[in-house]
């Protein structure tokens, strides 16, 4: 077994996750928000795989596969929404959707 140690993988995973969070919180385009979500999901996948390797168990890798499936489904729904918004000529800006305001 060679290559960089587990802490590196975890560090990269944390960085990716933070980038994702920042994207979700700061960007207004729904497309970018969706992308950032994908980044966060993949950051967690990286952590899963890294730990799986560390402990020599396959559970983490199985979980990573499941997360990919969820991510694929989520992208379908998300992109569908975005296409629907675009069809109706609505502004592609998450801040303009405030109907849930109390």
């Amino acid at each position, binding site marked *: 077994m060679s290559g960089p140690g587990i802490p590196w993988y975890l560090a990269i995973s944390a960085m990716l996750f933070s980038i994702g969070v920042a994207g979700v919180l*700061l960007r207004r385009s729904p497309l970018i928000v969706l992308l950032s979500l994908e980044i966060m999901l993949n950051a967690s996948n990286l952590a899963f795989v890294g730990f799986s390797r560390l402990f020599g168990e396959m559970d983490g890798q199985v979980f990573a596969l499941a997360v990919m499936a969820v991510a694929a489904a989520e992208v379908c729904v998300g992109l569908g929404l975005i296409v629907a918004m675009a069809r109706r000529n609505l502004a592609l800006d*998450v801040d303009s*959707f405030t109907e849930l*305001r*109390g």
Partner: protein
Amino acid sequence: MITGAWVCLLAPLAGFLAILLAGTRITRRQAGIVSTASVFVGFAGALVAFLDAWSRDPDDRTELTTAWTWLKAGEFEVGLQLLVDPLSLVMMLIVTGVGGLIVLYSNGYMAGEDEERRYFAYMAFFVFSMLMLVMGGNLLLLLVGWGLVGLASYLLIGYYHDRTSAVAAAKKAFVINALGDAIMALGFFLLVAKLGSLDFGVVFDAAESGELSDTVVTLAALALLGGAVAKSAQIPFHTWLPDAMEGPTPVSALIHAATMVTAGVYLICRTHPVFEAAPDVQHLAAIIGMVTLLVAGVVALVQWDIKRVIAYSTMSQIGYMFVGAGVGAYGFAMFHLFTHAFFKALLFLAAGMVIHHLHGEQDIRKMGGLKSSMPFTHVTFLVGTLALIGIPPLSGFWSKDAIVSSAGAMGGVLGWTLYVGCLVGALLTGLYAMRLYFYVFRGEPAAGAAPAAAEHGHHGEGPQSMKIPVAVLAVGSAIAGLLQIPGVWEPFDTWIDPVAEPLVHPSVAEDYLTSLFAVTLGTIGIYLAWRAFTAGRELVRAGGVRTALEHKLWFDELYDAVFSRPAQAIAVGLRDRFEGPVVQGGLDEVAEGTLRGAAATSAAQTGLLRTYALAITISVAVLALVFLVVR
């Protein structure tokens, strides 16, 4: 005997339920027939029971029967008991007999009323309640009947529910009666606490044997007296009776003359051992009776409403009965109750015919000269009036004089005071009764009376259903007194004696001497009334006195000022000071607080997606930190 009693009690109840359940499926006429028939079936039952009792030995005429245990609470048990004895048999016969005649009369009198069915249902209900009262085999059932007759009276006084005055009168009667009921119930609570039973036998034995302390007996007797005074419209609880004349006239005849208002006298006779154990209270009953008979007599002198005059005369006559029961002459008190039921029902029903004839006119100033247009009514009314005054040989003569001479036979300051009071009452009776008679039947026809009479000459004085009961009652008023002729025979007194042994026995000489005084005074009263009438004068002219009497001695005003107004002031005060700011205000505060909280919470909902995401992120971060730190 018991079967007859059960038939007597249940027939009117069945009639009431039948009319109630049939609703509009029967015509008004049929409702009247059902009601009349049910009361007469009751009368037949009472008659059977009476004949059975009559054929027995005098000591064997009391029967107590328990249908089932009605109430049970620990040691305390009350059965649904009927008591049939000479006393209750007399009342059963009066209630169903006179009651049946009056319901029959109602068939003619109430014809054409909108809500006849309701009226007849109430009448049957009243008869049932009254029978429950007199046949109840223990004090609790008596109280049940006592309350039910109050309810029936309320319903019937307020029969014309579209008239404000009738509704007010009904409420007044109910409230005062409820007050009496409550006083009586308090006495019963005391008896239950001390004896654990409300059976007549247990209570009477305890009162006679001295098992109860004097205080308890006195309080119990006072409570009974309170109930009796309220129900019988004696001072100070008398103000409801004149107002109760707002009800239909047959109701006044049945409830407010012949039966319900005499229940107080029945109660005193029934519970006489309690009163005898507390002689002061019994004397108080006699004093109340005397005061009432005098006050009612003078107030009757200035009244203008035909029914109110008769109502005051009812109060006055019940005053005599209270004097009789108060001095211990139970047989005579019941005998006066018996004859009074005839002649007072007769007076009311005859007055009803006059009112019917004149299209509801009740003011005697607008009547007059009806002698020629209503000969039948004239004769019967005159019989009733003379019986009321006590002219021999009509019934009032025998019964009233017996009470007066009993008061004399009691002797002492109290006895002679009562004696003189009762004789003065006889004079007053002659005055007000004949004043009423002269105003209605003699003199020139008043302006208002003549056209109405001419216009309705075709149906005469009323249908047969009205004339027959009046004729029967007139005969009764004339001859009922012959059941008791001092020195000759006294079947009525012998009949009652086994149940309520009298405390006083006037001698035959005392009796006839008293009668001489009473009849002389009554005749003087008639003469004075005649003189005043022919001279066109009023009987009471002195301004101040007249004002006082016209205001009925300010009893209503007094009660208004002492009870009604303070109660209203307290209620208004509580509403303004307590209910408004505290109860209502407190609820408002709770509601407003909820609203403010909701507004604050909803302000947090911005609707911005990124805010929510930020909130989630921050919370997760905080949670993670907490886990790290706690570890």
